[in-house]
């Protein structure tokens, strides 16, 4: 028989084995170990965000912007940037009670980010000439996208170590995927090889997957407060 989950009042039937009078609470002082205050943390996060953006902009500009930077392509880059900002907000939003958003929402965002990237990449590749999927074309773009995304990823992993009290792997996974998307945006703004779906999704988009997995792993290992 399926349980009735609407009413958990029946749980009160179970007695409490730890009901004895608790020992008196001793006087306590704050630990002497220095820990950042909220204002200091906010300052660090702003500095980290600025550094990450500078890293992406500097590497993208150093490698050079592609010659066919049309309004249509700028729209694609703009959509990815908006998606990155939304995903960043979802990862960092603490929820109404200050703990975390629902895990189902975080999971949806973690899956939705690459899905959105693939859909837009497909939409923008409709009339694009094919690009041969060779190691030479794949390796260059993959290295560049990963290199651009690596800076923000390292900054995020450093700033958000032991930072989440709940759902740390999901939230750091999402942050890692956003950093990978930053690399993808930088590479897409540079790549002169065209818009073919196979090239964009694999060579430019793989850092999203790498960043997501790195964030998930770091969240399991060092993410929980």
């Amino acid at each position: 028989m399926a349980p009735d989950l609407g009413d958990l009042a029946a749980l009160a039937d179970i007695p409490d084995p730890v009901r004895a009078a608790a020992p008196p609470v001793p006087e306590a002082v704050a630990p002497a170990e220095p820990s950042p205050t909220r204002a200091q943390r906010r300052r660090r996060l702003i500095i980290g965000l600025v550094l990450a953006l500078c890293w992406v902009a500097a590497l993208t500009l150093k490698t050079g912007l592609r010659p066919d930077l049309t309004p249509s392509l700028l729209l694609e880059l703009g959509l990815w940037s908006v998606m990155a900002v939304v995903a960043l907000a979802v990862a960092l939003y603490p929820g109404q009670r200050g703990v975390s958003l629902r895990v189902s929402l975080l999971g949806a965002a973690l899956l939705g980010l690459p899905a959105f990237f693939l859909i837009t990449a497909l939409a923008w590749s409709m009339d694009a000439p094919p690009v041969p999927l060779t190691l030479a074309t794949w390796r260059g773009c993959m290295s560049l996208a990963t290199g651009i995304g690596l800076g923000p990823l390292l900054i995020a992993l450093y700033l958000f170590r032991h930072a989440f009290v709940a759902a740390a792997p999901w939230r750091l996974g999402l942050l890692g995927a956003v950093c990978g998307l930053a690399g993808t945006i930088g590479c897409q703004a540079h790549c002169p090889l065209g818009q073919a779906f196979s090239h964009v999704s694999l060579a430019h988009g793989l850092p999203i997957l790498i960043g997501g997995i790195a964030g998930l792993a770091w969240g399991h290992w060092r993410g929980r407060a």
Partner: protein
Amino acid sequence: MDEPGLNAAMDRYACGDASAFAVIHGELLPRLRAFLTRMTGSPTLADDLVQETFLRMHRARATFVAGGAVLPWAYAIARNVHLDHGRSARLRKTERLPSDPGAEPEDPSATDAESAAIAAQAARTVERVLARLPPQQREAFVLIRYEGMSVQDAAAILGATPTAVKLRAFRAYEALRAELAELRGQSKGASDGA
């Protein structure tokens, strides 16, 4: 102290007011100690984990957001401490020291020796069944039944959906109810026989 007052104290502590720590410690220590005792089954170990929890709360105080609730935040940290302890303990066998009596409190409401014995036996049964439950069911049940958390807060603390948390708590309840019904049946049979 009421919950808004406690949240305000944590807010001050997150902003750097060290004097607020005494208020937070005084209010949260009994709750976290009880929670960790239920999770570990050992008051001695729970005391160690409570100290670690307060240290982590101190380190992570900047992550407490303005307007947040300190109770689910602190319970989530205590749960993390318990999880980390469980992971590190897998590699070594831990035993209760003879001086550690475990969670076997006396029931002050018991009016005679027989009811005291029954209450103590029920408490031991609950403790035994809780220890045998899968950790996910145990923590869901403990948070909702004993710590008074809402299903939403428990879900946020456990990183699960509210439906999953309800289901886990209900399964734990079913297991405990079955054991307690058996115990009551035995007690009734014994008293009828006498």
